[in-house]
């Protein structure tokens, strides 16, 4: 028996929560799927189980999530946690795995609210135990109330690196150093964007307070850092970096890396959505209209998965997608859709005011990255930067060719951890922008699942599409 819904929402971060809640309240049959066990996404991770101390630590920006999750629970959305979507089709069908069983279901509309991930930037030694994403430490604190013991070094770029530092500081963690690749002198275009940013002063105030607290605590904080290396034989022992030609060394038990945030696009790419390259922020995102509709009528993108604007904006983008879908399904007329959308659009514009300034301040630059031949690029298949440059020397000119020859991007993570850097490396070698070097093709299953699970699937529709649907992809 196949299951059909009015709308399937993938992901229950702020965008997915707001979309699923609104659509269900409007009387539609909505299924919300999330691969995590609990709703909230990364930003509101385990907010229901956080307790008072953790809610206080992460402040009002985290507690907002509790309201969203409570509304979602109260609306009685069909919700399945621990559900991994492994295929999305443009006609509105999806396959997902839960509790060792895969199902193929369908919907009139799909909202993919897949969120964002940290930009993976390979550095020497980043595979050593003890090197993690800064977001990982944040997740562990939110989900499990875990605090690192020993000395911590934070390295990379972006406001979230400093946010993580300030949280660790509040938790009493010994921070050995903050190593920022951000330039010593702010980029010229950040200055021109400052007046507009000041109109969204709350975020800037938060950032300034954070910086001041870190400074007051006397934490060594460097900018213009290059050549960050994780040192150690079988585990992290220290961190090395250069600043203005001088080499710095720090003892470290834990190195937290963060090089900004990029949209999590695997679902869009697998479905065949048209992708756009943002040359300033150096990431891909799915092309979509102001409601979040992609080039496929049935597939919507909401939240940070279609450009990174943060949690508040994600919530608004989820609402906009829901309004348009409710209109398409005949639940509200266009006039009501527009009336309901107006305050949301206004709030979205207000929230986005500081964004151009922040983006200009922290925009990644190729000069910030140092890809050395010995560095492991593909963590799954142990392919080094040098292995990739060798096949480029031999005449290979495109990302997917590199993948086929070297196995870079062919492991279980399917290029999630190496794809962005691979594009930078190939682009640099060919003197092209990364988008001209190609984009790794993403195939189902999006998540590794046992073949026995696929074989045991009930295809539901009597095999009207010949059963070739799994093999039929480009």
């Amino acid at each position, binding site marked *: 028996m196949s299951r059909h819904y009015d709308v399937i929402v993938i992901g229950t971060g702020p965008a997915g929560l707001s979309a699923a809640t609104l659509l269900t309240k409007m009387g539609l049959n909505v299924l919300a799927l999330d691969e995590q066990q609990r709703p909230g996404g990364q930003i509101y991770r385990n907010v229901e189980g956080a307790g008072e101390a953790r809610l206080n630590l992460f402040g009002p920006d985290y507690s907002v999530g509790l309201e969203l999750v409570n509304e979602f629970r109260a609306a009685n959305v069909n919700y399945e946690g621990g559900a991994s979507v492994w295929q999305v089709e443009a006609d509105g069908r999806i396959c997902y795995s839960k509790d060792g069983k895969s199902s193929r279901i369908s919907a009139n509309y799909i909202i993919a609210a897949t969120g964002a991930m940290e930009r993976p930037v390979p550095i020497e030694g980043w595979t050593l135990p003890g090197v993690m994403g800064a977001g990982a430490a944040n997740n562990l604190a939110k989900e499990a109330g875990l605090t690192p013991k020993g000395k911590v070094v934070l390295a990379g770029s972006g406001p979230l690196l400093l946010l993580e530092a300030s949280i660790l500081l509040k938790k009493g963690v010994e921070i050995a150093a903050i190593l920022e690749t951000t330039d010593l002198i702010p980029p010229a275009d950040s200055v021109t964007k400052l007046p507009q940013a000041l109109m969204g002063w709350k975020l800037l105030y938060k950032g300034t307070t954070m910086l001041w607290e870190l400074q007051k605590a006397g934490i060594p904080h460097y900018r213009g850092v290059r050549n960050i290396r994780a040192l150690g034989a079988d585990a*992290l022992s220290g961190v090395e970096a250069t600043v203005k030609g001088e080499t710095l060394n720090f003892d470290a038990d834990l190195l937290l890396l963060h090089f900004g945030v990029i949209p999590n696009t695997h679902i869009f790419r697998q479905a065949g959505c048209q992708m756009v390259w943002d040359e300033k922020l150096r990431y891909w995102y799915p092309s979509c209209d102001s409601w979040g509709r992609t080039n496929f009528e049935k597939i919507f993108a909401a939240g940070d998965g279609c450009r990174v604007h943060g949690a508040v904006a994600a919530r608004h983008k989820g609402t906009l997608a829901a309004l348009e879908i409710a209109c398409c399904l005949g639940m509200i007329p266009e006039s009501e859709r527009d009336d309901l959308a107006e305050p949301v659009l206004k709030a979205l514009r207000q929230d986005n005011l500081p964004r151009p300034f922040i983006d200009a301040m922290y925009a990644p630059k190729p000069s910030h990255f140092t890809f050395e031949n010995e560095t492991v690029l593909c963590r799954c298949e142990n392919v080094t930067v040098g292995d990739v440059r060798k096949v480029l020397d031999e005449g290979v000119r495109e990302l997917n060719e590199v993948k086929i020859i070297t196995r870079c991007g062919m492991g279980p993570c399917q290029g999630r951890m190496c794809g962005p850097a691979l594009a930078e490396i190939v682009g640099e070698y060919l003197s092209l922008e990364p988008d001209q070097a190609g984009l790794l093709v993403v195939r189902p299953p999006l998540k590794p699942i046992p073949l026995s699970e696929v074989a045991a699937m009930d295809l539901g529709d009597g095999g009207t599409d010949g059963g070739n649907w799994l093999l039929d992809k480009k």
Partner: protein
Amino acid sequence: MLKHSTTSTAEFKQDQAPAETVSVLLDGEKVDLPKGISIAAGLLSIGEIISRISPSAHKPRSPHCLMGVCYECLMEIDGVERQACMTDPEEGMVINRHLDSKGEDA
């Protein structure tokens, strides 16, 4: 507790003792993991930072992203390779990291 010989010095402590725990069989030994948090987070909370031996590099790895992206916490959970950061522990679960395998492909 049997630990891999190359255990990292990186460790985490729990802000609060877990309200409830579940017993699992980890690499053949019975351990208690906190209930209601992922297996990956639970293992880190008891000092088990090594999540697997990389099958290609034959070296120990620890969880890197804790959000389902990196697959460094893939481990055999009740007979199936699963992401430990996306899976909650359940009473009687059998978890194998194969830390002595030198990372050969199975």
